[in-house]
């Protein structure tokens, strides 16, 4: 049976992905996160939705420092090396606060960049040793070019992008494929809390693109796909023009 481990399973995008995966084939999910109550509810949802043979293990753990993160991932791997591993946690920081408070900036960079990279490395090592697997990292279009409205978050996500590129290089010949997903603005509690306006992609729409890309082992997945073109333009904008944009 296929095994899928999700670190940060409480993430809305991760949940949408699991809703897709659970209907594909019998899968054993290992849900890793902080809130046991939330993970149990998610487990029940996957059991109802999943094909016959779906099973779920809930694994709670901390993410507050290096030791806690590594203990959490080690604990998750004790349930078996996953065929698909996903690192999905993160939080959208308040850029204004991060610009003023060193502690807020440090937290934004750590939670969205350092801890996910640490998880990715541990999962990668396990999959490499097991001879294969798919590793999925949740980046963001915000990592493609620093913008004044969210460069703390963006910088952390670009850390992850470079890290993923390095893992992809290291994965040659190992049987492991590493995919970095860059969702565009998505309708999740995270963006709703940040007061994001406008038409956002639904998590299910984002997940559909992600699942197709992961199945193909695509190295960089923009979800929805139109963000690849949008971000190519934004990266190419000459500085004087870019500076005048309020994005």
């Amino acid at each position, binding site marked *: 049976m296929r095994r899928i481990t999700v670190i940060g399973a409480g993430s809305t995008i991760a949940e949408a992905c699991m809703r897709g995966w659970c209907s594909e084939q019998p899968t054993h999910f290992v849900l890793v996160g902080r809130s046991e*109550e*939330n993970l149990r*509810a*998610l487990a*029940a*949802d996957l*059991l*109802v*939705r999943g094909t016959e043979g779906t099973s779920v293990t809930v694994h709670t753990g901390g993410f507050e420092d290096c030791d806690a993160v590594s203990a959490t991932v080690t604990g998750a791997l004790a349930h078996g090396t996953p065929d698909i591993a996903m690192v999905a946690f993160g939080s959208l920081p308040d850029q204004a606060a991060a610009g003023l408070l060193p502690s807020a900036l440090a937290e934004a960079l750590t939670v969205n960049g350092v801890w996910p990279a640490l998880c990715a490395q541990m999962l990668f090592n396990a999959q490499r040793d097991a001879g294969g697997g798919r590793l999925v990292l949740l980046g963001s279009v915000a990592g493609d070019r620093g913008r004044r409205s969210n460069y703390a978050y963006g910088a952390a996500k670009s850390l992850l992008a470079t890290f993923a590129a390095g893992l992809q290089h290291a994965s040659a010949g190992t049987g492991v494929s590493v995919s970095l997903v860059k969702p565009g603005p998505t309708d999740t*509690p995270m963006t*709703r*809390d940040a*007061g994001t306006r406008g038409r956002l992609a639904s998590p299910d729409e984002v997940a559909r693109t992600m699942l197709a890309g992961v199945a193909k082992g695509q190295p960089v997945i923009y979800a929805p796909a139109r963000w690849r073109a949008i971000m190519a333009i934004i990266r190419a904008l000459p500085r004087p023009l870019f500076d005048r944009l309020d994005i």
Partner: protein
Amino acid sequence: MSPQRVALSGWGRWPQVQAELTEARGVDSIRELLREGAISVRGAGRSYGDSSLGQRMLDMTHTRRMRSFDAQTGIAVVDAGVTIEDLLRLFAPRGWLPAVTPGTRFVTVGGALASDVHGKNHHGAGSFSDHVPWFELMLADGEVVRVSREERPELFHATAGGMGLTGVILAVALELMPARSSDILQRSLKLEDIDATVAAIEANASWTYSAAWIDCQARGRRLGRSLLLLGEHASEGSQATAVNARAPVAIPLTPPAGTLAKPVVSAFNAIYHGRQRGPERTSRIPYTSFFHPLDAIANWNVLYGRRGFLQYQFVTPTEAGADPLRRALELISGAPVAAPLAVLKAFGEANVNLLSFPLRGYTLAVDLPASPAAFELCERLDRLVLGCGGRIYLSKDARMKPETFRACYPRWSEFEEIRARHGAAGRLTTLQSRRLGLA
């Protein structure tokens, strides 16, 4: 979980309010919100008037996980924010369908229970709550209780149809219906006037699904001309097509209020009525085309322009016969109001919920662009309905007076006693409950 200031309305887009909207994230967040003051609970916002509106609103739409499903009994337990669409997508391919569906699949099950909605099968299957063995309710003091007809009967019968005024519905157990196919065999009958329509409805009462589309602009001898749409589940065929794969299209802008002016409406009606040449036609159509034809357009409600619209739905008892319907159609077709759509159906027996709408008789629903003439028409219809012992549907209402409400729902005082006993008075309120004079 910070509240946001947003402009909100019901599906009719009238009235609109500026509200503080907080998204529900787990029971603790709801409890905290309740502790801080009075709230109004909102699901998908598909009730037409002000049933979901208030100053401090709780948004339940993101609370949408499945909790359990028993394939032996067909009982699914789901979060209150799960929609009929979610149920169709998941369970129709497994051979299970909702026992009752309203005219749109975009409603939440919490909202469907609070409104105790009905479908085209009410004459045989009853209302939505008649297929709910139990539900989970958070009372005003934050306590979460399991409510069934046996365990807490008074809360059950006050909450089902109780418009979200007794507590916060957190989860609903639903008895799904086994179905070998989700296709519907549809028979449509072309009928020349209101007497023929009512006679045909009665003569075809053995059909599982039945509702008539009435041309509101027809007058005189043709008053009440209609298409009666009857349906049965196909015994074989596709189970996968319950929901269109195609996403609904959205109208990108709000057209001017005159878009549905009377001549346009008359022409539209004539085309619809003329489409069927013979007196009778049989076809096999997908589930959602039969039950949710308007869902193909995501926001058809903007067609009534910026001012929005009212939907007026009433029921009159069987004993009163077709006469009140005739008089209502005369009032509607004679008023300077473009009323394009009316739906007529026969209800079966009422259930024992305190504020549920259906009672044995005929129910008529009509859309009216919000205008002074429409409000005046509604007042006249109120008098007609009350005069023959009928009632008006709270989930469509935005303008009923307190005395009209009390006459429609004589058990309102019992409802108020139960709310008071469970601490809901003054804590779970809506613009509608205040307008109707509830505590």
